[in-house]
């Protein structure tokens, strides 16, 4: 058997860090379809999995890859797929099934420029709203956004833990510039990596109901082949997992599917705040834009501008309480994004009435520079 956790210091591309993060998190099933700029994840896993007893399979399309990771999870594996925007557009079909069947799994989206084929080799953050709303119907999603290879490694592990804990498909929403930048990645010793596994039934099969939630709104998960006669469907269903296509069943199920995330915001939402104590301006950023954003804040601080930084590690669920809290103190939020305003809309909504919100948009193709963000901070500070 090859080593599963490559404890030590490495110089890795973000995509390699994601693959190794998945392996360290216990992922042993990967299904994928080639796509730029995410293919290195699948390639790396195809090399590593035969060494460690994992199953790698390249499918005919992303529809199949997404379906397969759900099936694999039902058989007990921690599973993952990776893709970019065009592939994610196909995956949202079975992403919705994963939400409905409550399947722990991880989907990596290495964002590139869109719409459509767009910029296959160049970066963007255009899929933020798609991550939230991509599949039909009402549901909550968890999406984490890394800014570096190290964070890509760390957050991939966290994605698996959140997926297992809340029984949901979780998205790692990275971007081309994270996937294709190389940097230092420190992999901790195996016993220092905290892993969470899904809840298992504590009752015998004859008392088990596939979708009877505990108090935390999350039902324990019996697996295929364990004798529990799992009954699951993409249709609206009751606690037994039997189809119940009535308004009453819909009300109960869809509320619970959303509430199991909404009622745990405190545990899920994660942000990094810097220089916020006396800030009158806050730069809100996520993913790799956080790096030029922090640099810009530093430059502005050197000029005496009272500006701080809020970096969203969880893009979804949105850090609404954090923005509402700081909106009482700051006069203005600056939101640099590699799109034409997505998280900007969320910030604006939460800040409304208390603080202004300014968007610094770039459509993708390259990162925003610290200077560009700095110029915007300077401009608004002079108002």
């Amino acid at each position, binding site marked *: 058997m090859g080593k599963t956790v490559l404890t030590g210091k490495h110089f890795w591309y973000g995509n390699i860090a994601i693959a190794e993060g998945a392996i360290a998190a216990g992922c042993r099933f990967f299904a994928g379809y080639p796509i730029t700029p995410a293919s290195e994840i699948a390639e790396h896993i195809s090399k590593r999995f035969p060494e460690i007893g994992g199953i790698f399979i390249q499918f005919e399309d992303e529809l199949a890859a997404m379906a397969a990771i759900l*099936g694999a999870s039902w058989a007990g594996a921690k599973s993952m797929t990776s893709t970019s925007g065009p592939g994610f557009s196909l995956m949202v079909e079975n992403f919705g099934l994963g939400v409905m069947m409550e399947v722990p799994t991880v989907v990596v989206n290495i964002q590139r420029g869109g719409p459509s084929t767009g910029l296959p080799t160049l970066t963007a953050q255009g899929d933020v709203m798609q991550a939230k709303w991509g599949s039909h119907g009402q549901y909550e999603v968890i999406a984490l956004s890394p800014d570096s290879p190290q964070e890509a490694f760390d957050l991939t592990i966290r994605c698996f833990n959140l997926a297992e804990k809340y029984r949901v498909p979780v998205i790692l929403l990275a971007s081309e510039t994270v996937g294709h930048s190389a940097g230092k990645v420190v992999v901790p010793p195996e016993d220092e990596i905290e892993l969470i596994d899904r809840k298992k039934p504590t009752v015998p099969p004859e008392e088990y109901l596939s979708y009877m939630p505990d108090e935390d709104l999350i039902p324990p998960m019996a697996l295929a082949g364990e004798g529990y006669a799992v009954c699951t469907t993409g249709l609206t269903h009751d606690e037994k997992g039997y189809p119940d296509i009535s308004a009453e069943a819909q009300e109960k199920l869809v509320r619970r599917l959303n509430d199991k995330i909404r009622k745990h915001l405190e545990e899920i939402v994660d942000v990094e705040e810097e220089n916020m104590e006396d800030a009158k301006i806050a730069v809100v950023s996520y993913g790799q834009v956080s790096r030029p954003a922090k640099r810009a804040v530093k430059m502005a601080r050197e000029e005496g501008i009272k500006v701080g930084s809020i970096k969203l590690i969880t893009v979804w669920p949105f850090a609404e309480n954090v923005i509402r809290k700081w909106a009482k103190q700051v006069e203005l939020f600056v939101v640099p994004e590699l799109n034409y305003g997505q998280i900007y809309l969320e910030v604006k909504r939460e800040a409304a009435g208390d603080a202004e919100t300014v968007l610094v948009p770039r459509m993708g193709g390259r990162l925003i520079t610290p200077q560009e963000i700095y110029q915007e901070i300077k401009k608004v500070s002079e108002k």
Partner: protein
Amino acid sequence: MSRKMISGEKPPQELHPMDWWLRSERMPHIWCAGCGIGSTLYAWARALDSVGIDKEKVVYVSGIGCCGRGSGYLDVDGFHTTHGRAIPFAIGIKLVKPDLCVNVISGDGDLFSIGGNHFIHACRRNVDLLVICTNNFIYGMTGGQLAATTPLGDYSTTTPYGNIEPPFNTPHLADASGAVYVARWTSIHVRLLEKSIAEALRMKGFRYIEVLSPCPVNYGRRNRLREVDDIAKWFWKSSVIKHGADTSEVQIEKGKPLILGNFVKREKKLSYYEELKKLEEKVKRAAEAEK
């Protein structure tokens, strides 16, 4: 009665022997009078019994459509997935737990229109699945639209002037794509179907059985087969059993014999999982040699 019996126990006397396999509390089912899905599932459950497969090891994956609902009626691990994606979903289960008996039972629209790509690639990879298609020549659940299996000239709600598209010859498609077992029966040939399913259950790799199945409500009534048993009579009168038939010659055409039988059996081909394990061994040996 759902999973109230642990496998190995004998069912209580008052039950029909097949109730052992059913989630009886879910009856009545949604299927129409004259539909062939029930008989197909009956043959499948009997075949599982005859081969002696532990109920706890049986997995039933379905897609969307009338047949898709079957996975919720049988007292096994049942996965009612999305339209066309039953096969890749099932592959995920089977590769992680190769000891399970994973079955995909779904309709022609699900497996050959929206899911056609997954079907041919699963054949090509020779993944360990038994795929049973209840082919009723039509989209039944949605009200009788044209399918990729509707015979030429037939009427549907979206071919009000008759179908101009040649249908798939699904056994030929499976054969050409590399399936190791290919058969065709009808839902009225219950005993022969059961034997065929049992034969397929004893094999590894990708096994495909097409089951022609009546849909009096949404196919028959628009195609001069209106009465509940008209399609069954057509099957009975026109069928010719020809084991080992050349699959390129079993296309279904109205007015011509319906060729049934066990067409293909390739026993020596390694399944996907076996190939995967071979690969793992190779990688391990190479790693040891490097040391």
